[in-house]
């Protein structure tokens, strides 16, 4: 039984990776375009980072776009002012998002539930206003411009990820794979188990002597690091960073992706991101009233598929 279960898991995993690897080949014939695939990966990674906190620690942050946006600005500022290096940009973007998260986390971790959500939203908006107002540094409402991702230089050879969209897709996929691996590793570690314990029953965890606040703070900070990295990738994708990426509506989209895909599963948010991004891309080309459809999607998922797509599939297969 267990063997069969594991085998199936492996097959699914292999299937996901084959699909992801072949995106530039099957997406365009189906009416998509490779850049859309890249976007799904980046936003998928962001949704997985949100879910790292939401699904595996049970803490609802509704302001995670702030760290995503900080990652984007970090990467952009690094490319614009420091050095023309894509990897440095990714690193600095991740650091900016993560450190800001670590700092604010100390103010936030003692709250729970709705209050946690409200405080994270409000603090997220602080960064939105900073990006929006500090126009001499961030470009304000017009966004941060005047940088572009740089070819990857390996000394002997370099890979052009700027003009070749397929190359860039594979670069993003590579980054995504590393982050997913790290995330998976953490979740399997004793620390990850503790996170689950907190999610399942915080009071019991506390009685067992687990320093709950510290664990939540670490989980929050880690997820902000992942978020910052995703944001940095987003800046490379657009060659651009703008305040909308920090806004709480963006946070809402991320949470939605996680819930829609299935927040109790590792890959759920990626699936959610894929469905969300593709659907929004399609709808907004077909009708100006796409916002209503996205809104209806939110309502429908909440009322009828609260466990998300993967949750439904799993339920079906178990029944």
């Amino acid at each position, binding site marked *: 039984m267990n063997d069969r279960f594991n085998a199936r898991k492996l097959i699914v995993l292999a299937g996901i990776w084959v699909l992801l690897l072949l995106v530039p080949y099957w997406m365009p014939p189906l009416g998509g375009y490779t850049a859309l695939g890249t976007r799904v990966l980046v936003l998928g990674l962001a949704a997985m980072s949100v879910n790292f906190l939401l699904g595996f620690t049970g803490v609802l942050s509704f302001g995670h776009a702030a760290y995503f946006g900080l990652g984007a600005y970090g990467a952009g500022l690094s490319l614009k002012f420091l050095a023309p290096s894509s990897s440095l940009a990714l690193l600095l973007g991740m650091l900016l998002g993560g450190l800001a998260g670590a700092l604010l986390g100390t103010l936030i971790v003692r709250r729970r539930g709705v209050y946690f959500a409200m405080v994270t939203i409000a603090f997220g908006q602080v960064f939105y206003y900073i990006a929006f107002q500090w126009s001499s540094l961030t470009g304000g409402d017009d966004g941060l411009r005047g940088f572009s991702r740089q070819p990857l230089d390996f000394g002997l050879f370099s890979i052009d990820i700027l003009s070749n969209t397929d190359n860039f897709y594979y670069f993003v996929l590579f980054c995504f794979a590393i982050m997913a691996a790290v995330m998976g590793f953490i979740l399997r570690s004793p620390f990850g188990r503790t996170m689950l314990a907190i999610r399942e029953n915080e009071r019991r965890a506390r009685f067992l002597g687990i320093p709950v606040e510290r664990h939540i703070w670490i989980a929050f900070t880690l997820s902000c690091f992942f978020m910052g990295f995703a944001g940095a990738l987003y800046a490379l994708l657009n060659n651009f960073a703008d305040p909308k990426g920090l806004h709480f509506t963006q946070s809402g989209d991320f949470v939605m992706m996680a819930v829609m895909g299935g927040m109790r599963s590792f890959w759920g948010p990626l699936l959610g991101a894929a469905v969300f991004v593709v659907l929004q891309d399609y709808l907004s*080309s077909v009708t100006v*009233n796409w916002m209503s459809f996205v809104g209806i999607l939110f309502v429908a998922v909440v009322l009828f598929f609260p466990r998300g797509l993967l949750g439904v599939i799993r339920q079906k297969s178990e029944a």
Partner: protein
Amino acid sequence: MTKEILSTEFNRRTVLKTAVAAGAVQIASPFVISARAADAIKIGMVDPLTGVYAAVAQNEVIGARFAVEEINAKGGVLGRPLELLVEDSANDVGTGVQKTRKLIERDQVSFIIGDVNSGIAQAMAQVTAEKKILHVVSGGHTDGITGKDCKWNVFRVCNTTRTEANSVSDILFNKYGKKWHFITPDYAFGHTLQQAGEANLKKLGGTMTGNELTPLGTTDFSAYLIKARAANPDVLLVLPQGSDMVNCLKQIAQFGIDKQIHVAGLQQELESLEAMPPEARVGIWMFEWYWKQPGVPHVEKFVADIRKRSNGKVPTARTWFGFTSVQTYAHVANQEKTLDAVKLAKALGNFQLPDDVKLQPNKCYYRAGDHQLMTSAFVGEALTKPAGDPEDLFRVDQVIAGDKVNPPESDTGCSLQWPA
């Protein structure tokens, strides 16, 4: 537990049905974005159809659609019909860039129009330049687009902020007085507009009593208005746009400030005036195009044609921007008998718009050096009481030719880099 699942199943189905029904209504509604034809030449438009610029963006789309209709009725471009694909940038740079890529990579459009938001327009220009696609910026005013960030493939129909300042400054100074106070939206567009106004004021020998920087999206202007009134200027220049301007002018009227200080501004739009109550419609402004131009050929027919397509609403400057953007492409492509972007961009230098496109008395052409359209400035006064037609909310006193108020090409900071 089972019961709960059952009821969920049932509800899911009803909701799906409702959603499908709602979808059918949506898709049958008149604002369906695209209809496709086989051998058509595809052109793309990216504009913020949702969000704070939705009203002006939708007018640009109406104008562009009408232009396509008119061109196709006259035989299309190079004998092929035009097909316009409209995408919503949702007033978000990331989305705008993504939609531009989608139009170019997937839909293979040969021409791009957009965006109302200067920031998005500039980000789009990065993409269109990289992909070597001809691009007309229909509604973003920041100087850089045809200034220091200019590109060989990017042309602009609407004015630069400096032009807007140049066209009003003299009249304001002579008519209203020489002590000016600015209320400036705190972002790139506002800063350049204010700097241009201030430079003109200095040149004329006036003084600035102050400059209030208001964050974009400010709803309450009273703190700034208190300071402005305390400075006791002759003229209060209101530079915010869209809903910020509406809020600001509404509060100015309620405070009675317009009875003590002359209220004016640089750029004004019909969309904004229509959103204001009568008492807030005051002051000297510049319009980039106005629908009432007695005696100018083709204007009346254009107004009548647009009215038929927009529930009786008259065209605004935005409608004309959308219209002109598409017409530019069709006319230059038919003239050059090619769709090659570099050749068309070269031909557009000093390209003059025909009478039935320019819809204004003066000569109207794209400058070769910075790719800026030299279009007239309509300077006049906002009307508290409409003059006849309920949408006639502006009295045009002067129509100034574009090349009189645009800074010389050498001053724009633009140097075009053509592809090898």
